[in-house]
């Protein structure tokens, strides 16, 4: 018998198939082995391998095809929400990926490349460490005595610097004293944890980032990236223990600032803003919503914008459909990831939205790619891109 993590969970699975009906990958491929129920059933057979299998002339054991199925997952966690017997499935998939690598299987090529880059340059893009804070052109906004650290994340640092700049502008307008970690900010480790490559995160990334934050003596840290937030909130405590600082996703922090009237949004609607006079909708990033349970804060922030017309898509909050980018899926299976995004864009079209507002750079990139694929005019923007027009 093979020793499998969370073996009891395998037996608890009822095979009801509720997870099948919400799995975005299954919706694309249709193969039973692609959905959570199928993966669990196969695993149970592997765990139970015995003499009877020889009699039946079958040899159920995990192979390359099973590994592929484990990696064909966006880590969206929709299966968690509907599980009849409350199996922590999203967590289980990550453990199983790690377990497969321990059995001697190789990570997918795209994920292996990410690990190599992170180990070399501390970011998944292979960009120079010294350029980590290049996104912030005006360093005068930084405070030597900050009340909060802004953890920009690799994507805002190297690929979509305008997001970081928007955050800086918003925090400045609320008179928030903030600073950044600069070269001391390393990848949070999310791309590695989601792909079963946990070692560098446990050994280097989590301890380093935690030390970098804690030695600055700040009371709070804020990040605008859903992936970073989920990792630091849910994974870091298991690796480095309880943090000494308060962690906020940017939308939570902004919600607080708006409620305490530190951040005052323009009462006079900016007529030039493309976000006014049209409907906008909010897409819950899986890592911020289902994984980190932040649903209200981004909605509160959007609704606080004077004149904004917010509509919900039918599948929202806990049951929001995935954009298709998470869990390392887009980097390995871009074609299907964009198909999943295109479906989400169509949902926005159905409620008449011109813009999808989100709070995750990966969702933004993939939803825009999905829209392009189907020729949709719906544009996806980050919540800070909208908000910066009203401060």
């Amino acid at each position, binding site marked *: 018998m093979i020793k499998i993590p969370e073996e009891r969970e395998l037996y608890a699975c009822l095979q009801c198939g*509720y997870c099948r009906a919400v799995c975005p990958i299954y919706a694309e491929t249709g193969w039973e082995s692609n959905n959570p129920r199928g993966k669990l059933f196969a695993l149970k057979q592997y765990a139970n391998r015995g003499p009877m299998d020889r009699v039946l002339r*079958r040899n159920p054991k995990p192979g390359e095809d099973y590994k592929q199925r484990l990696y064909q997952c966006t880590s969206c966690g929709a299966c968690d929400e509907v599980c*009849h017997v409350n199996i922590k499935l999203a967590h289980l998939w990550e453990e199983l990926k790690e377990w497969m690598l321990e059995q001697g299987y190789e990570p997918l090529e795209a994920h292996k490349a990410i690990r190599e880059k992170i180990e070399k340059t501390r970011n998944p893009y292979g960009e120079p460490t010294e350029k980590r804070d290049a996104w912030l052109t005006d360093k005068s906004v930084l405070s030597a005595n900050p009340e909060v650290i802004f953890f920009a994340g690799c994507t805002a640092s190297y690929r979509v610097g305008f997001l970081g700049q928007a955050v800086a502008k918003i925090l400045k307008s609320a008179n928030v004293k903030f600073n950044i970690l600069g070269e001391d900010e390393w990848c949070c480790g999310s791309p590695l944890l989601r792909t079963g490559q946990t070692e560098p995160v446990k050994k280097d990334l989590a301890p380093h980032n935690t030390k970098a934050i804690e030695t600055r003596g700040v009371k709070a840290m804020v990040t605008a990236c859903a992936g970073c937030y989920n990792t630091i909130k849910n994974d870091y405590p298991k690796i480095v223990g309880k943090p000494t600082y308060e962690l906020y996703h940017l939308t939570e922090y902004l919600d607080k600032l708006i409620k305490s009237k530190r951040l005052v949004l323009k009462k006079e609607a900016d007529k030039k803003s493309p976000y006014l006079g049209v409907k906008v909708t909010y897409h819950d990033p899986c890592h911020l919503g289902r994984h980190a349970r932040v649903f209200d804060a981004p909605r509160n922030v959007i609704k606080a914008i004077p004149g904004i017309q917010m509509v919900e898509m039918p599948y929202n909050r806990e049951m929001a459909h995935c954009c298709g980018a998470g869990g390392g899926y887009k980097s390995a299976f871009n074609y299907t990831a964009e198909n999943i995004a295109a479906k989400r864009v169509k949902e926005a079209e159905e409620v008449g939205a011109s813009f999808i507002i989100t709070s995750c750079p990966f969702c933004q990139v993939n939803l825009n790619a999905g829209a392009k694929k189907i020729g949709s005019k719906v544009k996806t923007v980050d919540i800070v891109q909208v908000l910066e027009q009203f401060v």
Partner: protein
Amino acid sequence: MIDSDIARRSLIKAVRPDRYTESQLERLVTSHDLAPMPKVAALAFKMMPDAVIHPKEAEEVAEVVGIANSWDIPVTPRGGGSWGFGGAVPNNGGVLLDMTSMDAIISFDPEKGIVRVQPGVVWLRLDEWLKRRGYFVPYYPSSAPGATIGGWISTGGVGVGSYKYGAARDNVRSLQIVLPSGRIIDTAHISDSKHPSQFDMTSLFIGAEGSLGIVTAIDLQVYPDPEAFVPASYSFPNMDLAYTALARISEAKLKPYHVAFVDDNYFRFLRAMGRTAPEVGGMVNLVFEGPKAKVDEEVKFFDALMASIGGKRESEEIAQHEWRERSYELRSKKLGTGAVIGEALVPVGQTTAVARETAALVKKMKMNLAVNGYLIDRGTVAFLPFYITDERRWIKSISSLSFVKKFLDISNAHGGRGVGLGLFMANNLRSMRDINTVKLLRKIKYYVDPESRVNGGKTVELATRYGIRVGPRLFRFAMNMLAVLKRLYGRDRYDAPVPGGFPGGEHS
């Protein structure tokens, strides 16, 4: 494996290469349904298909069936795979048609309230789709988040909302079927839907468990979304009173939308898992829907009726929770790693007797059992006992399966009948229907499917992978032996203690 390369190539051509597979992984994961069948069962039934196919259209299904006929390949249609009687499990390999790939909502006529769907559409998805258009589907299986429309219809289709809106056969206006010959038929003319003036064959295929053909499209009657929708829960000090309540509800002049119940052990199981559950003798959950004034009147009427029997109206929070949990009745499976469900339709007046005899059987077999169920019409209760077992202890687990047969014998003795036949309970047909009816049903099967190729060896007969037919006597003997074996074993226990234990103090 499909032996003939020509057959394989023909099947691939019938669909597309990316919708055909012989991968061991895919065949493995489609070789089961909800029932935790032990591996040893594969000695009798070749449950792993030789190939899995994803059809998209009826014409593709017809072509696959035609090729299967030419090459003598068994065909098994599979929907959500969430039933527990093996109806969607191959008994002799062959081709498995995974019908979930046919999941399109084809058309909707709001004027007639008729929606045409492919069989792989999931019930909950259809309801969500309709709600966005001001309609709803008021009848569905409790497994609606995972069950497919084609699958449920093939099982007979009684469930949530059947009390007011009837079963599937009351709401299916027409079916498109691929017959075992490969021909495509429509069972009724849709324009005659509500008042058929022609020969309507729809009912013949509902509950046939895929033995007479493969459902490829369904015309369903749906309804405007109601103005008011109110769940109400009533607790009772014991199940005798709760069963009395069911009888009184069924005689009442007013009719709730849905009438469900759970017993005290159901809540005990949940508490053993660390969940919060009411400490009551039993619970009757009513749901009302319709115009607000009518719903108000019904709530008032049933409040008084339940109070007169000793029922206490629980908070709205509990009622809403019980309603939300209607699709999650087996949460306690986690307690013991395995769960087996029995299901029988029992005359309302016989519910207490069936419950008492079932409890005695459970005590004799040293098991723990919880019961839930619902009224499906004024005369009938769907009685669903389930027990928690431990799959890892396979002899004990297999011997426990005999409970289902023994329970069905009890319900049959009280004028009840089992709900499913499929593969595992096919031999129960003889104890539910008279011999002439059974013979006719078999004749119909062999008429449309002379070689018993489409879902053969099930429902009206039981055949093993070697083609050997197992009769009711052998089946009964085997089940009786397993029941004896179960009694020789110790009492069922769980990893977690059950607070308060079980009646009679049998269990830890």
